[in-house]
């Protein structure tokens, strides 16, 4: 049943949270365009949408961390216009974010009361015993009895740490404050085990019993269908549907999110891909983020890897670069063994030398030396080539740097301009020039066009195609479905560290990719 014919269901009588119109632009981009949302009292309401549909922006507006362009909303009939996180908290909104925001060195109890008044003795000293008692009470409300409040946060496993972060939203401050009216959960189960997820669901259902509302943001369709009462779908910043969970299906939701019909994809014919051109052969990679990943990269082919956040897509590239440790797996490059974990490992230095070039995900923190100049940034992995007996040869350096910055059409005041002064797109071109200067056999790209404008984006695409045409095997990670289809000869999808889809791009549509991303294993057949 396509959802767009049922854009709204009848509203329950008591609307707790009513966002009539919310808009927000970032530069040219409309992140939210008159989105609307209605959550009833005592309702568990899901908010779904593709990456970039506007879910996070809407939550940030509710939390008061972002200034809206337009925000017309009410909470229990009163105007809701939070100007700061404290403001939102005072109005009775509670947020549990994806990022834990905990202080590892402090105890569980201290983290629970972080930023709230600690209980105190008469002299103003902290009443530690009372603090621990109250912390234990908060955890017990969640059904958590195995975490000792005095334990330092860093000793907890990720799942337990998430439970503490959740519990923090249940700390009641002083008696005069507004009791919580709406809880917003942003991808709370990303690092939880199944058992921990069930604990969380129990708590959420208990909240519902107390007539508290829950806004639940998740990519996991099975959870949404199991837990929620109604679902609001965002697409391109606008609300496209609100439906009763009981009357919808997974496919109908994906259809609403993508605006396209789900089509079964065609499995590649056996033998369609020869092994003659295999540049990089990857067999059974396994580490903390990857489970038994095997794939081949062909010379001259653009393979695009996608999947949800936390699916292991960046970690796969890092493992191939030798940036993260591997427990098991073999990688051969043009027939030569590069990695044979755990016996033979590599580091990024060895990967570059073997002809693997890498564009990391985070330009500022992982790729560029911001206070260095263009020339040094481009040549950093290639210094061996432009030095003799360790001494730099200026003219050779200049020539090399000029050649590759011209190739990427870098707009700068010269090779000595400091990278920090360049625009985002030009900074990314510096990273590209660095990778291309390796004349790589394998080019690993992690979100190659993140944060660059449309013009620069197209230039990047041309550079990638050009590199492929020269025989480089390309593996590009992207979370942008448009980009998948713009670039890909072949598409890989990872879900929770497993490769769940490996097919020619021409045989796929958006829905097939999303479907594979959301429910691991379900599509692999």
């Amino acid at each position, binding site marked *: 049943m396509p959802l767009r014919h049922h854009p709204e269901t009848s509203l329950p009588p008591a609307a707790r949270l009513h966002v009539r119109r919310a808009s927000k632009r970032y530069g040219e981009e409309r992140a939210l365009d008159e989105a609307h949302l209605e959550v009833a009292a005592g309702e568990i309401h899901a908010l779904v949408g593709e990456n970039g549909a506007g879910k996070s922006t809407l939550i940030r507006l509710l939390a008061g961390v972002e200034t809206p362009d337009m925000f017309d909303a009410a909470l229990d009939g009163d105007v809701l216009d939070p100007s700061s996180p404290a403001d939102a908290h005072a109005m009775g909104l509670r947020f549990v974010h994806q990022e834990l925001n905990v202080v590892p060195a402090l105890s569980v109890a201290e983290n629970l009361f972080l930023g709230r008044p600690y209980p105190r003795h008469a002299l103003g000293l902290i009443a530690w015993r009372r603090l621990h008692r109250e912390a234990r009470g908060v955890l017990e409300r969640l059904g958590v009895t195995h975490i000792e409040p005095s334990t330092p946060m860093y000793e907890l496993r990720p799942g337990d740490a998430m439970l503490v972060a959740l519990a923090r939203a249940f700390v009641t401050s002083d008696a005069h404050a507004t009791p919580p009216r709406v809880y917003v959960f942003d991808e709370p189960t990303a690092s939880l085990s199944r058992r921990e997820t069930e604990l969380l669901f129990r708590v959420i259902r208990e909240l519902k019993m107390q007539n508290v509302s829950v806004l639940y943001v998740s990519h996991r369709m099975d959870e949404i269908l199991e837990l929620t009462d109604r679902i609001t779908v965002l697409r391109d910043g606008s609300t496209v549907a609100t439906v009763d969970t009981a009357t919808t299906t997974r496919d109908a939701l994906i259809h609403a999110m993508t605006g396209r019909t789900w089509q079964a994809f065609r499995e590649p014919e056996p033998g369609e891909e020869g092994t003659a051109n295999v540049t990089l052969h990857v067999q059974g990679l396994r580490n903390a983020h990857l489970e038994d990943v095997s794939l081949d990269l062909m010379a001259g082919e653009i393979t695009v890897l996608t999947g949800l956040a936390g699916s292991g897509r960046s970690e796969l590239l890092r493992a191939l*670069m030798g*940036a993260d440790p591997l427990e098991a797996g073999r990688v051969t490059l043009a027939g030569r063994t590069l990695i044979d974990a755990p016996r033979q490992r590599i*580091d*990024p*230095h060895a*990967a*570059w*030398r073997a002809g693997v070039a*890498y564009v*990391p995900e985070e330009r500022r*923190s*992982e*790729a*560029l*030396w*911001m*206070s*260095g100049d263009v020339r*040094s940034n481009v*040549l*950093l*992995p290639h*210094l*061996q080539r*432009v*030095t003799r007996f*360790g*001494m*730099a040869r200026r003219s050779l350096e200049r020539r090399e740097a000029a050649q590759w910055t011209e190739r990427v059409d870098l707009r700068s005041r010269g090779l000595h301009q*400091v990278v920090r002064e360049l625009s985002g797109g030009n900074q990314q071109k510096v990273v590209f020039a*660095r990778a291309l200067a390796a004349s790589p056999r394998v080019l690993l790209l992690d979100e190659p066009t993140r944060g660059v404008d449309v013009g620069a984006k197209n230039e990047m695409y041309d550079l990638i195609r050009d590199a492929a045409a020269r025989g480089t095997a390309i593996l590009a990670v992207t979370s942008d479905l448009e980009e998948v289809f713009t670039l890909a000869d072949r598409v890989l999808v990872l879900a929770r560290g497993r490769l769940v889809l490996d097919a020619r791009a021409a045989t796929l549509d958006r829905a097939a990719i999303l479907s594979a991303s959301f429910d691991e294993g379900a599509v692999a057949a």
Partner: protein
Amino acid sequence: MIRRFGTLLGLIAIIATFSVLRPDTFMTVPNWLNITQQVSILAVVAFASTIVMVTGAFDLSVGTMASLAGMIAAAAMQADLGIPLALALALTAAAVGGAFNGFLVAYLRIVPFVATLGTLTMFGGFALLVSDGSTIYGRAIPAAFGGFGRGGIPLGTIDGRAVLLPNLTLVAAGVLIVTWLLLEHTGYGRRLYAIGGNRVAARLAGVRTRLALLGAFVASGVGAGIGGLMLASRLASANPTQGDGLMLNAIAAVFLGVTLSQEGEPRVLGTLVGVTILGVLANGLTQLQIDTYVQQVLTGVIVVGAVAVGSLRRREA
């Protein structure tokens, strides 16, 4: 502009002040040659410290390493091993000590402050062990070794007195050139700056960051060792704590130099300016017969002032 080169202008102002207050003695060739000799030891240690500080780390152990190296050389000479072997032993110990620092920081990932604070104490202890706590001087030190530190190349005579270009000044100049070439003209230097700029990015771009850091600490140790040998030569004696005070001044000199750089990273020529400021101040204030305690306060005020101005500039940028 004024802020960027404030430190340099400060140096010029200091020189001008002393020139006016001591017109007969300050701005003279012999006095300036004297200053270069006075700062040569600090300069060598500061240049070597610059190499480590380029990577964003620092090395607190250079002072006691200087003491230790001087002590080892003196003990070896006392045992009649000859000057060449004594120097080789001292410098080898300095390289090993530096490598140990590098191992702690790069491979065990101990914070440089803590790691080198620990080895500072260790090296100081070794110096005391080697000498059994006593000073080695007099006939135990060969005349050639002691003579080097006081000698120089004759330049001619002024007012009937021989003027020498001090040997120690030449050593410092040599270390300056080597350090400058290393940092500004080698691939290794470029990698060190990249590590200081963004260690994660440097690693992902194929720089062997741990090995590079290890090398920087070895260089720092060897530089400290050379400084310690120069000091022992100049004094023609070695006591187990004579180099300890070099560390604070070396780091201060590097920070003074940092205020001159556009991007806030250490440059060895900046360090040279820093060393010069400290040397000129000490020389001029002594000529003005200002109490050494007051000298110390003034030096501290100038270091803090220069760095404060530098950080204000960066906040505006």
